[in-house]
């Protein structure tokens, strides 16, 4: 446990006016002070917490906000907000006992007495100092590079500057055609600018790909409307004629532009080390050993500022490895648990403006004796090259442009030194549509790294399976594999599948012993063969008498497809007890009554009716999290009367008992709220009325917020809608409850019609393809391709299903009927609402006591005290 130590490191500060020797108490506790709260600095703090460190932690961040996801910075231009990018919050740090200071740039270190000072004069003591200062963009020393619209691309503040500048610009130039430069170019293009990339070298992405690959990349990117100028050295930036600026090149040509974005490489932020005598490399970078210690024993360096073996690692995964190593070393010294940092693989796979690019290992064939195989398909825009060693047995590197489907396989060959097939070229060429050989999950050693973001090896996955995990989603949760960049999703799945198969766990998707089909199969069978009853389904596709798994699942499928009354004779025995009695059974066998309050909006008159009913039937009353009112303690025989009164007063069933749409929560929105930009209540009511009665594999919750302040907590719902100035942002597959998960941003600035159309399709697709009792979050995690796949299906109609999905939903919407209204007018259904078939007595085992002015079920002890009349003798064998 981390002791809460707020203010602990604070030696002498303007804020509190403390003096150095006014230090706090627990001197014995090791104080770890971290400079820099970038991705790696933050990950380091998490590692300390994870390893149950008994140290005090203090973080000094040079930025104005806590750590955020730099890797996905570009998504800011496709709709992600600052909030979405944050990796943590100040509150979270406080909750975990971590002292955190933003806007605290350190400019002085006293190594002797072990303290540092920030530019605002605050001083902090340390036992262990960790430099996680990252790097800064290199701006080439070109005259005129310091003008207002000459920008860089590294921080959230930069994003705001770029956004502001783009608003008053028409042409934008990115200086630098490397990986980041191309990403930046994409951002400018998305901002609507005429976009150019100016590269000094003869080719794009010179670090990762070879010349031929670079050339193809250039063509592809130009085809997408970005102008690429290679071999251009900018000499000066002067006032433009048609635009704001004019870039003058060494060859005499020039380019007019309104905005210049420098992305000409990064430089390690090593100035603190430089100034205070900590060893740095000849070309910069803070020198570290295999345990991330600098030349100063009590000072560590991790992430992009660190130089190991004369190398800087400009990716997050190696930074994370350093963080793990440093944390272990600080906590337990050199021990078995402490993994030494021994370099990292810099292979990358990415999609730049829709162009797939992959680079593995020695992409340039620099190793002595290296030989290459390459393959080019010009019409399709595909280039692939592999680099093998002199014996043609091991893969050294690869370049893939236009098609990275073999990336995972090639990477495994390289990382694990797997012997190449007889004809190595078969790895990148396919003949007559034959599949290129892929490395079987089986042939990977246990040490094979599957997820490099979270350092998960095949061995870790095997261990998790040994410990009882048995699903892909479970493995993801417990090992975190594939929850970083997601690049390893396919590989992870094949490892999990093959391991499960090996242990004889047939990856059995049969719903139960009565049907050799998954829920999704059953759904399709029912849909295609138009089966309407369980008896028919069982006799044509199942065996035995059914059970409490297949029956409710079938009932739900029938309801989703045909929307017949759930208490209709052939369906009645299929329903879960909650559905049979149209209420939620509580622990004592009584039911709760929850009428629908769409959007959480209710009139005083209706509130009064609820109060009257509760009073008349002595029901316990509570407000639910879904903005409605729950009346507890209703006995089976009273339910019809209670509902008659409610229906009479205009209430409808709330389906709180069903695996169906529950509620659409809303904030008051623009109608009342000062900040609201759309009518969130109005939309919530419309959505709730549209989807009410939709039965699904599990319950579905919605919420709608009227602005980005998100008071309705829409991001924790299956479907979350947040108002923007221009429409609605749609979030999907969030979850509260046991496994909280933020919804993923699905689409932005939608008009209401499109929003509804998307939700129709998503829900129908969920109903069609999910497993039984699978919430949307797990469902999407289990879709191969996850969010991107779902977007493709719903937005681009990649499966050609949208028409069916929409009409499936239309049918449910058109055939909606309030189940309680129907039940109370139907004597046959009412027959079941009694405890005894041969008596009007009530169940004497249901007893209440009073608590805080309302009823609650009596405990067993309370019952036996008051019982003179026993109900049944319980027999235990």
């Amino acid at each position, binding site marked *: 446990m981390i002791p809460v130590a707020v203010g602990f490191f604070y030696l002498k500060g303007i804020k509190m006016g403390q003096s150095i020797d006014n230090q706090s108490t627990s001197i014995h506790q090791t104080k770890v002070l971290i400079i820099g709260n970038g991705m790696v600095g933050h990950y380091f703090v998490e590692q300390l917490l994870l390893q149950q460190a008994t140290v005090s932690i203090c973080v000094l961040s040079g930025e104005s906000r806590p750590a955020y996801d730099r890797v996905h910075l570009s998504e800011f231009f496709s709709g992600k907000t600052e909030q979405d990018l944050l990796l943590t919050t100040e509150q979270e740090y406080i909750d975990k006992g971590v002292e955190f200071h933003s806007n605290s740039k350190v400019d002085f270190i006293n190594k002797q007495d072990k303290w540092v000072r920030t530019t605002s004069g605050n001083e902090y003591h340390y036992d262990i100092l960790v430099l996680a200062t990252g790097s800064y963009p290199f701006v080439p020393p070109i005259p005129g590079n310091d003008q207002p619209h000459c920008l860089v691309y590294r921080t959230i503040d930069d994003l705001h500057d770029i956004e502001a500048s783009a608003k008053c610009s028409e042409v934008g130039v990115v200086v630098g055609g490397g990986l980041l430069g191309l990403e930046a170019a994409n951002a400018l293009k998305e901002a609507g600018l005429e976009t150019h990339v100016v590269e000094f070298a003869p080719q794009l992405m010179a670090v990762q790909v070879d010349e031929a690959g670079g050339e193809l990349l250039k063509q592809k990117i130009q085809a997408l409307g970005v102008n690429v100028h290679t071999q251009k050295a900018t000499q000066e930036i002067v006032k433009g004629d048609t635009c704001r600026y004019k870039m003058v090149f060494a060859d005499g040509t020039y380019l007019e532009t309104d905005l210049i974005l420098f992305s000409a490489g990064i430089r390690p932020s090593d100035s603190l080390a430089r100034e205070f005598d900590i060893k740095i490399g000849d070309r910069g970078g803070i020198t570290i050993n295999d345990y991330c210690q600098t030349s100063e024993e009590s000072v560590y360096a991790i992430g992009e500022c660190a130089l190991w073996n004369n190398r800087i690692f400009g990716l997050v995964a190696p930074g994370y490895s350093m963080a793990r190593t440093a944390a272990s070393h600080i906590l337990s010294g050199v021990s078995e648990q402490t993994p030494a940092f021994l370099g990292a693989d810099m292979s990358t796979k990415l999609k730049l403006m829709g162009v797939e690019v992959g680079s593995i290992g020695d992409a340039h064939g620099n190793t002595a004796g290296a030989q290459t195989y390459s393959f080019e398909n010009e019409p399709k825009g595909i280039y692939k090259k592999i680099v093998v060693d002199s014996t043609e047995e091991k893969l050294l590197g690869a370049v893939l442009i236009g098609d990275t489907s073999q990336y995972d396989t090639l990477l495994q060959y390289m990382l694990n030194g797997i012997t190449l097939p007889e004809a190595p070229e078969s790895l990148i060429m396919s003949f007559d549509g034959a599949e290129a050989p892929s490395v079987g999950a089986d042939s990977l050693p246990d040490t094979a790294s599957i997820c490099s973001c979270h350092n998960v090896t095949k061995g870790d996955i095997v261990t998790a399976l040994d410990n009882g995990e048995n699903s892909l989603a479970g493995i993801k949760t417990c090992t975190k594999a594939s929850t970083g960049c997601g690049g390893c999703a396919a590989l992870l799945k094949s490892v999990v599948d093959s391991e499960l198969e090996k242990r004889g766990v047939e990856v059995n998707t049969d719903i139960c*012993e*009565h049907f050799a089909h998954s829920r999704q199969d059953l759904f399709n069978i029912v849909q295609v063969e138009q089966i309407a009853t369980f*008896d028919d389904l069982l006799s044509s596709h199942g065996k*035995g*008498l*059914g*059970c*409490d798994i*297949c*029956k*409710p699942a079938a009932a739900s499928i029938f309801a989703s497809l045909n929307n017949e009354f759930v208490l209709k*004779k052939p369906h*009645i*025995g*299929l*329903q*879960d*007890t909650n559905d*049979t*009695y149209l209420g939620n*059974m509580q*622990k*004592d*066998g009584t039911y709760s009554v929850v009428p629908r309050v769409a959007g959480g909006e209710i009139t005083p008159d209706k509130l009064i009716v609820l109060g009257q009913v509760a009073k008349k039937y002595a029901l316990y009353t509570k407000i639910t999290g879904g903005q409605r009112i729950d009346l507890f303690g209703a006995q089976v025989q009273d339910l019809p009367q209670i509902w008659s009164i409610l229906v009479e007063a205009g209430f409808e069933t709330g389906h709180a008992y069903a695996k169906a749409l529950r509620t659409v929560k809303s904030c008051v929105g623009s109608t009342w709220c000062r900040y609201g930009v759309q009518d969130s209540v109005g939309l919530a009511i419309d959505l709730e009325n549209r989807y009410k009665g939709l039965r699904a594999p599990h319950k579905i919750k919605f919420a709608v917020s009227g602005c980005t302040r998100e008071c309705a907590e829409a991001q924790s719902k299956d479907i979350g809608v947040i108002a923007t100035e221009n429409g609605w942002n749609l979030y999907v597959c969030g979850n509260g409850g046991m496994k909280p998960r933020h919804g993923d941003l699905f689409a932005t600035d939608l008009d209401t019609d499109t929003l509804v159309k998307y939700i129709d399709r998503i829900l129908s697709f969920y109903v069609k393809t999910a497993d039984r009792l699978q919430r949307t979050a797990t469902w999407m995690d289990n879709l191969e391709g996850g969010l991107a796949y779902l977007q493709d299906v719903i937005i681009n109609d990649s499966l050609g299903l949208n028409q069916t999905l929409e009409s499936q939903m239309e049918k449910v919407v058109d055939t909606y009927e309030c189940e309680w209204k129907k039940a109370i007018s139907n004597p046959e259904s009412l*027959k*079941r609402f009694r*405890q*005894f*078939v*041969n*008596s*009007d*007595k009530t*169940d*004497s*085992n*249901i007893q209440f006591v009073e608590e805080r002015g309302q009823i609650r079920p009596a405990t*067993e002890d309370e019952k036996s005290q008051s019982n003179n*009349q*026993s*109900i*049944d*003798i*319980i*027999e*235990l*064998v």
Partner: protein
Amino acid sequence: MQDTQTLSSNTTSEMKVIAGDWITVCTKNDLVENSGVCALLPAHLVRGDAKIEDNLEVQIAIFYIKQINKVFAISNYDPIGKANVMYRGIVGSISDEPMVSSPLYKQHFSLETGICFEKPEYMLRTYLCRIQDNLVQVKVGSINHSSQ
């Protein structure tokens, strides 16, 4: 010879029946296909261990499974959830043995033996039950020990 007694809501505990008799609980029409109803009976009528003076009543869940055209009678008290709710459970089969699942915590109980599949230390009382001339009847006095 009269071998049945009709019990209705005005059942009195004084009613005289002889062990081995079948008492009528309700009509077949009162049953719900592939689902359950619950009957309230004086304990001494159906259980050898209860006496008239005890003035006890028992709740018996009665299920009708159409496919095999059988009725089953079993205690309505869920010993794990501790509530009288068994008749609201879903019926079906596990490896061809008819069963009902508790609507509270979903354990499965054999309709033939009353034994819980997941926790065999729990067993529900079962009673002999039949449909005779459209009447649903439970056998007086003897508990069904078909589990032996």
